[in-house]
């Protein structure tokens, strides 16, 4: 049960009764007073009971986990999700047998799914969360790949003494490359173009 209307002699009693029936605590619900009620004469004549509507607040992170489960289930993938929350950043790590379907070429399906999870999570949430959706350690492997690519491309830029443009990547992948090359003395990196075609350019100094 997620929501119910309860009554009592006073608003306070009505809320207490609702919390008992929902088996929850006050900080996990939203309370709407429908009728404040009236004490009446001597508490007997003309008294009106107080009515309140009590609704269990949705936990946006749990809702997002459900969303991931549902979407994957509809793709015939039975995922297990491990969730970590650090401040306002939520990481969902998915594990399943045929996870490749959810990653796609160069992670494009995973990135699209991550964006949808981000939207779903922030839709009903008062707080703003950033989201990382990972699949069987894909993000970690991708980071290594990007770092080694960054090194190779930096060498190429220096060797040819020419700018080298990389293929378009989402912001968090570009960041990995910028960070990997920030201490490199012979080159500078910047991003060029508009989303979704924004890409890194490595320029020799």
């Amino acid at each position: 049960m997620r929501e119910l209307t309860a009554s009592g002699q006073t608003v306070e009693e009505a809320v207490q009764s609702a919390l008992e029936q929902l088996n929850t605590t006050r900080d996990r619900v939203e309370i709407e007073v429908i009728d404040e009620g009236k004490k009446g004469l001597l508490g007997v004549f003309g008294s009106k009971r107080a009515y309140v509507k009590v609704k269990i607040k949705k936990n946006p992170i749990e809702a997002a986990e459900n969303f991931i489960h549902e979407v994957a289930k509809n793709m015939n993938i039975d995922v297990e999700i491990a969730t970590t929350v650090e401040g306002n950043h939520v990481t969902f790590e998915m594990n399943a047998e045929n996870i490749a379907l959810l990653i796609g070429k160069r992670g494009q399906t995973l990135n699209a799914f991550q964006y949808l999870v981000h939207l779903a999570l922030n839709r009903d949430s008062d707080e703003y969360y950033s989201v990382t959706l990972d699949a069987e350690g894909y993000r970690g492997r991708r980071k290594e790949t990007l770092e080694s690519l960054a090194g190779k491309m930096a060498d190429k830029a220096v060797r040819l003494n020419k700018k080298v443009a990389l293929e378009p990547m989402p912001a968090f992948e570009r960041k990995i490359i910028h960070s990997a090359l920030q201490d490199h003395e012979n080159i500078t990196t910047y991003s060029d173009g508009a989303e979704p075609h924004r890409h890194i350019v490595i320029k020799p100094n």
Partner: protein
Amino acid sequence: MKALIETIVTSLVDHPEDIVVAEREEESKIVYHLTVNQEDVGKVIGKNGRIAKAIRTVVYAAKPDGNKRIYLDIM
């Protein structure tokens, strides 16, 4: 496929009761036509169609093997 589209879109819009996904089979492809409440149009398309693109990417990835091509039409 229809359930997948509905699951995704339900979590994005404010009026899930107004989501309609119509399925139409053509010679070489299956077309899914999605309509949502007028107020939610922006929530399924997004700036520069970014949300629409993400929905399509996920939906197309789910295509069962050997089936016809699928196409998602929004609004």
